[in-house]
């Protein structure tokens, strides 16, 4: 059954609205945190793609915009991009704050892909990398202010692997510990459940493009 709602991303109204917003966002790119909150396409042009998506340029070249991945998703996490996506119009992506990827163990979205834009051979959902969660607004993070929140940590499907809690002394009260959620890039798959669950009006933890693996010149 084709879900009509999967395609409502492309409306004239949104096209016009985003047509203005995105160039603006790009204009301030290169530092401003605020642009990161334009989650449909942030300042770095990052789209959270479904599990198994190949590298972005290859993805755009292969995706035939058929919407089969979106149909296969039992949670309606996958949406087809609207006009703001430029050449990516009609491609599948996930808006974590609305519905994140719940990491189905049988990965139905990737299996449904006929074009190779999503890797059908993907077997272990914990081995994918859609992006990496980052705490982008430390001042607004309740856990870092000492409150016992840590919702991102407890809701992480890779709890104690992708996010761990690192306690440290709370100077302000003198008797409590601040439980800092620490994200481990090599384990975080970028599902966006933390971003979705964050209790702040603007999520302080968001999924971003995974930074490239760096070469070390030092033995730790």
């Amino acid at each position, binding site marked *: 059954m084709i879900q009509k709602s999967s395609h409502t991303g492309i409306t004239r109204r949104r096209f016009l609205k985003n047509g203005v917003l995105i160039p603006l966002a790009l204009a301030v790119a290169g530092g401003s945190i605020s642009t990161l909150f334009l989650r449909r396409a942030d300042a770095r042009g990052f789209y959270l793609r479904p599990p198994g998506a190949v590298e972005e340029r290859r993805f755009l070249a292969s995706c035939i915009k058929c919407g089969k991945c979106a149909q296969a998703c039992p949670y309606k996490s996958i949406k087809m991009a609207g006009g703001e996506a430029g050449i990516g119009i009609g491609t599948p992506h996930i808006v974590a704050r609305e519905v994140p990827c719940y990491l189905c*163990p049988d990965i139905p979205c990737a299996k449904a892909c006929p074009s190779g834009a999503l890797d059908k051979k993907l077997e272990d959902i914990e081995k994918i990398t859609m992006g990496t969660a980052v705490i982008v607004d430390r001042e607004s993070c309740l856990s870092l202010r000492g*409150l016992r929140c840590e*919702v991102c940590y407890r809701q992480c499907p*890779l709890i104690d692997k992708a996010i761990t*809690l690192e306690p440290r002394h709370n100077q302000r009260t003198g*008797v409590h510990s*601040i*439980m800092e959620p620490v994200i481990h890039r090599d384990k975080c798959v970028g599902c966006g459940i933390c971003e979705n*669950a964050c209790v702040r009006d603007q999520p302080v933890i968001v999924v971003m493009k995974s930074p490239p693996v760096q070469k070390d010149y030092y033995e730790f």
Partner: protein
Amino acid sequence: MELSRRDFLKASAAAAAFAAAGAPLLGSNNADAAEAGIKWGKAPCRFCGTGCGVLVGVKDGKIVATKGDPAAPVNRGLNCIKGYFLSKILYGKDRLTKPLIRKGNKMVEASWDEAMTLIASKFKEAIEKHGPDSVAMYGSGQWTVFEGYAASKLFKGGIGTNNIEPNARLCMASAVTGFMTTFASDEPMGVYDDLDLGDTYFLWGANMAECHPVLFSRIIDNRLKNPAVKIIDFGTRRTRTSQMADQYIKFTPQTDLALLNAIAYVIVKEKLYDEQFIKKHVVFKKGKTNIGNGLEDKFKFTDDPKPMTFDEYKEFLSTYTPEYVEKLSGVPAAKIIELARLYADKKRKVNSLWTMGFNQHTRGTWVNNLVYNVHLLTGKICRPGENPLSLTGQPSACGTAREVGTFTHRLPADMVVTNPDHRAMAAKIWGIDPKKIPEKPTYNAVEMFRALDRGDIKVVWTQVTNPFQSLPNLNRFRKGARKGDGRFVIVSDMYPTKSTEVADVILPSASWVEKEGVFGNAERRTQQWFKMVEAPGEARSDLAQTIELAKRLGHGNLFPYKYIEKEMWEEYRQFTGGGKDLAPYEAYVKSRGLRWPVVNGKETLYRYAEGYDPYVKAGEGIKFYKNKKDDGRAVIWARPYEAAAEAPDKTYPFWLCTGRVLEHWHTGTMTGRVPELKRAYPSAVCEMHPDDAKKLGIKNLQKVKISSRRGTITLPVDLNGRGKAEKGNIFVAFFDETKLINELCIDAYCPISGEPDYKKCAVKVEKA
């Protein structure tokens, strides 16, 4: 004396106290506060038994913000995520604002007069036709002290029935009977300061990381400062607490009884006990064994304590060798020996902490006794930094349900209806005929709703609680409430709940700072707050509702107060001398709470300890002075291991355990109205061990049908969640009103405490 509230406020000089903490009192003429446009007042948090202090900011008659109270010793300005959203719990869209009366299948708006006239007529009719024991009040550990006191006074002293119970029966009753049987006085000797001062913490059936989050972060901070600190988590489920503990000791459900006896066995065998302490402060007793599980309606049990010698106690322990208990519990014998030695280590300051894993237990009283045994054997009790501490789940389970005594068998301050002297004292304070208070307790909570189902109780009024989601074996009680035939259910609440669904009359209630109140937390701290905002629409406080019924039943003379709260407090205070002393009302207005006994304006940190407790004389050191019949000694009880009421078998091969998550509180009626918390944890899941799931061919997130002999629900499986079920166990949280897991729970209870076991019953799990 004519004393208006306004006069009192002026006289109490409360404004000064608040200004000192940077929080001007609501209603005072503080210029800084007026400038900001927000007026701040103090209150304890509305949620758990920790009792964190918060400052409540009010503007234009609405709460616009809350903050952790930096002057509150409990939390020093911190809160958990529920406390952070306190300002939202009163403002859910579906707040009840008018009384509703059932007309057929519809609930129809009515005036207060109409609703109260109907309620009073139902009470009168039932009392006339079937006697006073056909009407009942089911209240709460979230009642303010005043609400509980008024209800108890009306039912026991006015209507003349002991049909009053709090929901604390479902969460704290075993702790109470544990205290009463071991020390003859309810509530702990220790305080939260022990979380900073100790170095060894044994947690039993307590997921502190999620359920007492602010207290847990204190233990963790203690460990950061002192690397010698050890946290040992005994449990049947790997929780966030286990994750942060130094050791997680998993055991087969119900074998905590055997484990504690094995620890005592090692301590005795290796002579690690404190002989002097035992000689001076302890007696040994045994009670009945094979005591049943309260599964039959009208179950009755009376223990028959018999004294025994230390040698006889040693003989009793001889069964519980580490090797034998290893077979029962799955905990290696060597580990049991190691932990017993740790418990007894003379260089260590040892604390035990527990909550529902112990209390919601068919042998809840016994297991509470057994943990005290270990502390009494080693003398690690009543000293700064080393104590057993029973944690509580509700904001005033201690202050109201236990101290006011809103249980069927209780009167205020450790007194009981079965004792003629206690009844006489209550009657004197209440100004009634002593014959009015019945000498026999009637129903515990489960029995109360069984009686409603049978039709023995006709009218039941519930306040500040949600029994038709929170009772075990829920199907029976939900059906029972709607059986008709003269049954009449009144539910007072702030929101529609699973309980208002079965109500004949729904009364809209004021909540938290929409009324003046006092709560008492788990460390004996009594905390007061003022009314800060008006309740919406026609909502009224439960206190006003109870007094309105009293007037209509002709018992208005029991409540002759002008400034109700203050005068009622001073009346209630007359019950509380001799070690449970409470201070005059002003003291609580001015302070961030005081820990009783408060004598000559001074709070008490450590009960029964010389230099702390004013009732312990110089030279006595430690004196369990409340236990007069044992000469001021505490009791070490020989309590055996006995099997659970229902254990897994071929048809129902899994243990089901239920509990809470950090984001939601109890049945979720408040936290479920906070969109941010709802988003953070939207619905219940079934935690299962990955190996069990694999065997059943179930993948993560797949839906499963869970069935017990009592009910069935369908839930998605969570194999990677915050809680990791052990093999053969599943866990489901009970906050989700769309998934009533309590339909599956067994209504077996501890025969001594009457508290049901929500942690153990047998279920099967199938692909849905």
